[in-house]
Every structure is written in structure tokens, then in C-alpha cells.
């Protein structure tokens, strides 16, 4: 187990370094840089030269990368050109906002999607199962981009919840949590609803397969109550394929969160990275990408541990290779 963890952490480090390095180099290769984007092409030559030197943009890509990497080892990720603040201070705040959004959405999706999937998978012909399946199909056809547009539309028409942002300006500090929760409703639903539908479908499929297996029949024959068989024995077996999928969901969640953040003006990592990419703020781009990679590595690690928990066979090497990377 220790060896396994060490290897996973090594991979996480590799992922973060590779992704942030690649995005730094890519952003640097892009035509134009922060100075020309912000000052415009008409700016005097000396000003441009001076600003470039200030940001380290006058060096070659290789030299700039080496300087950045050497500083990054000491946890100094450079300064954002746009904000004039160290990337290290800028990222955690925005990353936390994305994490709040993503984790809430994942929890909502899990607590709605999985139980419904168990019900529809174990009694596929009931009226309830048909209704849920139809709703799932509709939600599956609405990726976060569409759900967030739709919910903003509903919110703008009805005024039930705030349509954008994370906090109301001038809200009293004692009501801050309630205010945050009210702002969280829309983006969470937008991100969580399609995910809940996907989890419901997957769980339902897994469940309907497990319910047909001999061990379920045998347990039922021994007189164990149906509800108990479904919710304890069959569910545990059916969780395996779902747990395997969670590792890939983290990426889906981050992608979806990008669309939601842009549309509902949620101040997260996605909007920060978009701004950084547009202004060619290379150190901030690298920082955002690195933070995203960290999320990803952490998410896949947690899901692998969860997989090992529901399926002890998964900790042997062959499975690790299939689920890992």
C-alpha cells in the first residue's frame, strides 16, 4: 500500500510539472505577448523593451523556462502580469472557489443519481423507473453549457435565486454564508444535473446486471428481505464500475465547471485561466494549469482509493494499470 501511494504521488507530481511546463511553453509560443497585448502595437519601442525585460519576456523560451522552473522548485511561481500579484497568492483563492463548486455539484449528483440508479436498475419496469429514465435522458442531452443558460434564464424570469457571481455586493457579513449558498444554487445545479443523470444511468446499468447474478437469487432464496439484498449486497457489487468511472469524472467536472463559471460569472479557476490565456499572462497560465492538474491528480487518487475499498481486487497491479495513469 505504501509503495502504491508513493508511486501515485510521484505520478501526481509528474502530472503537475508536465502540465504547467507544457502550458507555459505553449503560452509563450503563442503569437504576441502580454506587453504587446496590453500596450498595443503603437507603444514606443523603449517602453515595450523595458516592460518585456521586467517580466522576463526578453529571454529565450528555454532560458525563461529554466528560470521559472528553478524558482518553482522554491514554490515561487512568478508574478501575474495582469494583476501584479504573485501567482502563488492569486491561485488558491480562485481554486478554492472552483473546488467549492465542483465538490458540491459532485455530492449533489452522487446523492441524487446513485440512489435513483439503484431503484431504476432493480425495478426496471416500474412506472417510477420509466419516469426517471426519461428525465435522465433529457438531462443527459443538456451539458453544463446548456443547463447554465437555461437556469440563468429561469432565474432571470422568476428571481428565485441570484443569476451571477458568488457574493452580493454590500451584503452584511453575518448573512455571508446564506448569501454564498444562494449564489451556489444555480452553478451547482447546472454542473450537477447532467452528472446526476449520467450516474443514474451507469448505476442503473450496473445494478440491473448484478440483480441477475446467482448470488442475489441465492440470498433472496435464503429469506433475506428484498430491500436489504438490493441496498446492501447488490449495491456493493454494483458500485465497482461506478467507482472506476469516478476517476474520469474529475476531468469532466473541471471541463463542465469551465462553461458554468463563464456563464454564471463564478470567480473560479476557469475564468482566471481564460483571462490569463487571452492576455498572454504566461506565469498565470502555467499556475492555473498546474492547479488544475493538482485537482485532477488528487481526484484520480481519491477515486482509486475508493475503488480499492469497494473492490479489493483492484489493488493488484493489473487493475491498477487499467484504472490508473
Amino acid at each position: 500500500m505504501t509503495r502504491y501511494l508513493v508511486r501515485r504521488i510521484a505520478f501526481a507530481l509528474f502530472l503537475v510539472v508536465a502540465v504547467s511546463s507544457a502550458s507555459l511553453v505553449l503560452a509563450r509560443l503563442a503569437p504576441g505577448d502580454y506587453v504587446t497585448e496590453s500596450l498595443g502595437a503603437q507603444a514606443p519601442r523603449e517602453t515595450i523593451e523595458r516592460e518585456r525585460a521586467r517580466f522576463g519576456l526578453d529571454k529565450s523560451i528555454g532560458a525563461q523556462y529554466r528560470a521559472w522552473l528553478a524558482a518553482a522548485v522554491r514554490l515561487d511561481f512568478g508574478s501575474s502580469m495582469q494583476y501584479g500579484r504573485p501567482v502563488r497568492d492569486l491561485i488558491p483563492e480562485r481554486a478554492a472557489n472552483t473546488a467549492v463548486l465542483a465538490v458540491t455539484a459532485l455530492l449533489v449528483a452522487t446523492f441524487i443519481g446513485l440512489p435513483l440508479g439503484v431503484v431504476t436498475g432493480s425495478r426496471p419496469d416500474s412506472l417510477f423507473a420509466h419516469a426517471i429514465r426519461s428525465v435522465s435522458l433529457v438531462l443527459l442531452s443538456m451539458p453544463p453549457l446548456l443547463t447554465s443558460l437555461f437556469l440563468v434564464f429561469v432565474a432571470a424570469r422568476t428571481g428565485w435565486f441570484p443569476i451571477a457571481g458568488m457574493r452580493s455586493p454590500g451584503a452584511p457579513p453575518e448573512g455571508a454564508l446564506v448569501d454564498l449558498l444562494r449564489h451556489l444554487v444555480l452553478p451547482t445545479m447546472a454542473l450537477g444535473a447532467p452528472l446526476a443523470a449520467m450516474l443514474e444511468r451507469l448505476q442503473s446499468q450496473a445494478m440491473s446486471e448484478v440483480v441477475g447474478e446467482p448470488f442475489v437469487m441465492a440470498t433472496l432464496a435464503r429469506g433475506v428481505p428484498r430491500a436489504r439484498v438490493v441496498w446492501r449486497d447488490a449495491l456493493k457489487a454494483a458500485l465497482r464500475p461506478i467507482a472506476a468511472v469516478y476517476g474520469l469524472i474529475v476531468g469532466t467536472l473541471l471541463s463542465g465547471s469551465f462553461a458554468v463559471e463563464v456563464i454564471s460569472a463564478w470567480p473560479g479557476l476557469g475564468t482566471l485561466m481564460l483571462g490569463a490565456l487571452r492576455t498572454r499572462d504566461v506565469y498565470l497560465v502555467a499556475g492555473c494549469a498546474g492547479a488544475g492538474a493538482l485537482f485532477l491528480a488528487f481526484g484520480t487518487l481519491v477515486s482509486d482509493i475508493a475503488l480499492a475499498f469497494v473492490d479489493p481486487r483492484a489493488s493488484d497491479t493489473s487493475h491498477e494499470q487499467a484504472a490508473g495513469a
Partner: protein
Amino acid sequence: MSRRLGLVIVAFAVAAAIGAPAVAPHGITDHFGLLLNAPPTLPRLVDDQGSLHAPFIYPWRRLSQLEQRYEEDRSVRIPLAWFSGGHLVRSSNETAAPLLLLGADSFGRDVFARLAFGARLSLGLAITAALGAMLLGAIFGTIAGYYGGTLDDLLMRTTDFVMVLPAMYVALALRSVLPLVLTATQVFGLLAAIFAVVGAPFIARGVRAIVRSEKQLEYAAAAQALGASDLRLLARHLLPAARGFLAVQMTLLVPAFIVAEATLSYVGLGFPDQLASWGTMLHDASTNIRVFADFPWLLSPAAAMFLVVLGLNLVLQDSRSPADTRRGANASLLG
């Protein structure tokens, strides 16, 4: 039943895209300066007196230029003109009362026409990119599955790596490396290439698994014993086994790419604004703060996207094998 409904929806969208010049009453840049943000004109059969007529419309009368509020002018009936001037249907008096089935946008352009022409770009891009992803995926998947060994390990490690990355960010980062302003053709090619690369690993994994298990079967051994070359064995015997899998993945990739184009264009990194794609239309709508409260017809590209994706999901219903999901080789996870 629902499967057929899905086919009908998808067929309608494709037909509208192909026949856009005939289906749409106007071009994508025709604008009606007096009808900025005008609501949809409703084709009617019955007038205010309750008498029946051939389909007609009432023209819009502007109540307030500043607030862009309009009212139907019930005093004049404008009959619709069928099959005139190369268009399926338009108003018989285009200058005074154009037929705006889904209203007009902030520039007074016909939203329905832009939607139909936009389907060409949006669907065309998604289908091209999906075909590219299948081609790449099939090539790498077969190589990995057929030859095995180190090459297989290397390829599968790479696909694992690309698959965990959030597809949207990869596309975003790759897109923003290139100049912000590109021509439409360049954007089309570029986005198709980026999407194909991001989608290919999902295909490659599935194809690899299929090729690997098929090549152990007797018929493959028989073909080999008869002296079939590797290439022949792959192209004639092993790849056809993956046909069903590829068809399912195609219907999963297309919706993912439609939405990806819309997201990129929405944030201004997709097609140039003056073109009509479903994404640029949403981008235009997003710059109008009154869109949600007062001009909801500007969101019709979102509705169109929903219908097409729903149609594809209906077609796909139950044909997706759980085994593919378990392998993690499923493009439905492509975020």
C-alpha cells in the same frame, strides 16, 4: 418509438443544414434596421374576425425605439409567398413585413436563417472532427491491440494520460496558442484537428480491446494460416468487428463536439463573430444584457443544440454496451 423520434429530429437538423439557402427566408447578414430584437412573427390561419385564410402574418409595429418593444399591426394581413425567389417560404412583402420565424437579433438579422446556416458550421465541424477522431483512434487502437508489447504499453499510457485531462481545457489551451484572429476556414480546420486529438483516445482504447480479443479467435488464426498479410487481416477481418462500437462512439462524439464548439465560440475563441454558428450566436446573445428577460428567442441556438443532442441520445438508447463503460472507453465521459 422514441428511437424513431430521435432519428426524425436529427434528420430535420441535417436537412435544415444542407438546405439552408432554401429553408431560410433570408441570408445571414441581411438585416432589418427597423426590427432590432423584434419578436418572432407567428404564421396564422385565422384573423381577428375569425375567418379562415391561407397562411399569413401580421407585421410588427415599433412602439418604442429605445426599449425595442413591438406590437402586431392587426390591420394588415401579409400572405406568405411559397417557393418564391428560391426560398421555401417568405413574406409576400419582405421589406415591410419580413418573415422572422424566430425573431431578429440585436442587429436585426433573422435568427431562424442564422440558425439554419449555423447548423452547417456547427454540425459540419462536429461530424468532421468525430470522423477524424475515429480515424486516429482506429489507427492507434489497432496498432496497439495487434502488435502489443512496448508499443502497446506506450500508446495506452498516452491515451490514459489524455483521457484524464479535462478536454475543454486542452482545447482551450491549444486554441489560444494560435493567433486570436483567423479566417473561418482556418478556425474550422484547427478546431476539427484539436477535437479529433482530444476524442481519439476514447476510440483507441475500445478498438484496441476489440482487436486484441478478436485476433485470438479461430477465424483470425485461419486467415493468418492462409497467408493473409497483417494489413489484410486488420482491414478485412479485425476492424469490421469494431463497427458497432465505432457507430456508438460516433453518436457520442458528435454532441460533445457540438457543445465544445459552442463553448469555445461563446468565450470568443471559436469562429469569427460575423459568421453564423450556434456558438457565435450564443456569443452575440450573451453581450445583450436583456436577452434572458426580454429577448429569449436569441437563445434558440441553445434549444437547437439540446434537440440535436437529445435526438442522438434517443437514437443511441440502450445500444451502448455496459462493457464499454466499464472499460472506461466511452466518449460520453468526454467533458
